[in-house]
């Protein structure tokens, strides 16, 4: 019986080790990406935010537009020219796929408008927007840095406000559309060789 017990110990340890090895502890849910090929190379993807239902946080100096209820926006003078919003972000099928923060700061040398988009299953994007909108109303931003899936990409993101015209009772007031136009950067030959070897 002692031998059976000892064999059980070994089997139990092996079973736990096997389970930890083979069963993923974390399994992020993935929505199918809706990406199309841009005519001049690269790819394009359309993301949007339904307003106001996708707004997690809104903070601005003075606290008049503070959201959610009960949030205390800092009133330190150093933050007097900074406002930020946090949103849920959706894909073209209107499914939530991530979160994003948009910060606007008025500075002497020019306004700063930054986006960070975080898609848990894919990675993150850091975008600097041009403070001056285009004549057609949209604003163009450059991808400054990407994490994980977006790390080797460069390109632009277009931001625009689209008002709702459906007239439906429960329709959002409008949506912020973000259209990414990204292209992979060509790696130097030695780095490509390393990747293949891996």
């Amino acid at each position, binding site marked *: 019986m002692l031998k*059976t017990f000892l064999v059980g110990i*070994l089997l*139990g340890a092996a079973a736990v080790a096997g389970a930890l090895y083979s069963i993923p502890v974390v399994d992020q849910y993935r929505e199918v990406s809706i990406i199309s090929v841009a005519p001049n190379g690269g790819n394009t993807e359309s993301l949007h935010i339904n307003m106001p239902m996708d707004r997690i*946080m809104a903070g601005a100096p003075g606290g008049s537009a503070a959201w959610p209820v009960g949030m205390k926006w*800092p009133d330190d003078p150093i933050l007097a020219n900074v406002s930020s919003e946090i949103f*849920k972000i959706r894909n073209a099928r209107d*499914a939530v796929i991530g979160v994003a923060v948009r910060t606007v700061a008025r500075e002497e040398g020019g306004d700063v408008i930054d986006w960070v988009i975080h898609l*848990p299953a894919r990675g993150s994007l850091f975008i*600097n927007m041009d403070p001056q909108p285009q004549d057609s109303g949209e604003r163009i931003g450059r991808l400054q840095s990407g994490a994980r899936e977006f790390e080797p990409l460069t390109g632009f993101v277009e931001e625009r406000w689209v008002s709702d015209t459906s007239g439906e009772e429960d329709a959002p007031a409008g949506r912020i559309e973000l259209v990414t136009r990204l292209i992979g950067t060509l790696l130097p030959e030695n780095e490509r060789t390393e990747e293949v070897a891996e």
Partner: protein
Amino acid sequence: MKYILALLLGLATGGALFAVGLAYNPFFGNADLSPLAVTDSQTVMLGYPAVTTESIVFTNDGESRVQPHPEKVLQLWEAPIRQTSVMAVVLWDGRNQTAGLGFKFASTSESTRLLDGRAIVDSVWYVYLPGRGSLFIEQSENYWDFLRDIVLPAYRSSADAWRGQWHGNMTVGPGALGTAKVTGGAGDFLGHTMLGVESQSVRAWHVDRGVIAGEGQLVIELPTNPSIEFATEAEEL
């Protein structure tokens, strides 16, 4: 029958022994010394509250141990963002003065390997420092030490709590030395790529509320560029 009982008892004992051995494996864990502790470059230190009720906003799926703050904030209940948390905090500098705003998005990582002592969280920070510029910090954090040194003892405690002094570097990548990748986005930092390390100091943790006393810290190695003049830790001391 007694052989089956002995086998089942052995299986349970073996599983438990393996789990205990894994949890207290002395070879697992993050480096105690920050890679930036020995840098020749100037560094800037930004502190933030690790207690969620001291943040501007904290939200998650609403079913986790740490409750969203404030109470009525939108929760991240949709499947693709259910394993993600969002935090907005005021950042302070080495003099305990407000330095700017920080936003952290953190998601549990599929690169988690408990057999290797890796409880990984992929996170990004957006930091805005008025008058100086913006920073984007991309990192992988390993919470293994945190779980082993704080969470497990708290669950074993009859008070469901842990008290003590714990300090750990959370960042383990993507930099080869266990550093975060920091990209400057605007102002003085525009166009610069830097290194960073996030650490946490915890004094109290509760099973139902998470961290109840503690601070976090971001240390960023500044590029060797004379145009960036920052009140560094050395100057502050």
